[in-house]
């Protein structure tokens, strides 16, 4: 698939997700207490100081944006300093890798923040003008997504400059697969090692999270939806891992038989 087609596909899906989320969120905001309780576990009478929350929400979003720009400029500075020297390459690579990670964290943090803000809006829909609040949250979310995508794409370009054999893009739907195909032997080993380590840590964290949420849900009589979602994620992750391992083992045996 060429770059333009990939970009077009990305924008179509991205646009659809934003519009569908907007429509669903808009109607969800006007639904009764029952839906609110099922969705969030809180009842409609939860007391929240909106002005304080709104200020915190905006401040945290701005902080995420500052971190995003800071990481980008740091990466750019590292590459601008680049000389045809091995030590400089190593330093620049480290800085760019770190910048990408920081930017990703800021990006996800901003999205989670906006989701929380939307949820609070849904829960306390009677207490403020929901349309205005909802659209403010929606606009900030879309802005955060656009800024995140643009900065990330620029960071990817910087990284492609450092590792020309890896041509990465934010418009890629399966970046890990692309990276796996393009990587050479040492890069592949690094990729597999980090992927396995990520899986191990994530599954442990999710399992712990599942237990904690289950206990909180039982003690505080909250909705079980969060515990169910986290539980499903744990089951899904472990199933994918087991099936993939089984398939790889099986394929290996078939190859040996053919030989």
């Amino acid at each position, binding site marked *: 698939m060429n770059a333009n087609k990939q970009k077009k596909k990305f924008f179509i899906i991205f646009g659809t997700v934003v519009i569908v989320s907007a429509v669903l969120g808009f109607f969800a905001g006007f639904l009764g207490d029952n839906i609110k309780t099922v969705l969030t576990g809180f009842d409609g009478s939860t007391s929240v100081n909106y002005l304080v929350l709104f200020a915190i929400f905006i401040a945290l979003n701005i902080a995420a944006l500052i971190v995003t720009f800071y990481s980008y400029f740091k990466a750019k500075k590292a590459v601008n300093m680049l000389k045809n020297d091995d030590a400089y390459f190593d330093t620049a690579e480290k800085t760019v890798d770190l910048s990408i990670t920081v930017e990703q964290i800021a990006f996800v943090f901003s999205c989670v923040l906006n989701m929380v803000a939307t949820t609070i809006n849904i829960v306390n829909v009677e207490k403020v003008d929901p349309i205005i609040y909802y659209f403010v949250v929606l606009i900030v979310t879309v802005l955060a997504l656009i800024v995140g995508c643009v900065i990330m794409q620029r960071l990817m370009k910087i990284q492609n400059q450092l590792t020309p054999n890896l041509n990465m893009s934010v418009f890629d739907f399966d970046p890990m697969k692309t990276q796996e195909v393009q990587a050479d032997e040492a*890069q592949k080993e690094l990729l597999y090692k980090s992927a396995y380590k990520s899986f191990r840590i994530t599954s442990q964290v999710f399992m712990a999270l599942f237990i904690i949420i289950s206990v909180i849900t039982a003690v505080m009589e909250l909705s079980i939806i969060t515990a169910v979602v986290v539980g499903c994620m744990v089951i899904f992750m472990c199933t994918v891992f087991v099936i993939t391992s089984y398939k790889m083992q099986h394929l290996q045996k078939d190859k040996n038989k053919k030989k």
Partner: protein
Amino acid sequence: MPLYNRLKEYRAKNGINQSEMGRLVGVSRQTISQIERGDYSPSVVLAIKIARYFNVSVEDIFDFKEEE
């Protein structure tokens, strides 16, 4: 088992940097850097390619010490 190598030494003797070395043997600069640091043990094919480029045997560049 740690693999010791003299790749950096050979590279310096021939006056080529990591990027050029990578290009010559068909891998990335990162791979050469990781081999030199001892973070990655190259495949047999890559070790032979590197040795052939310097016109020496693989053992001249790569060696390992048995742990006592």
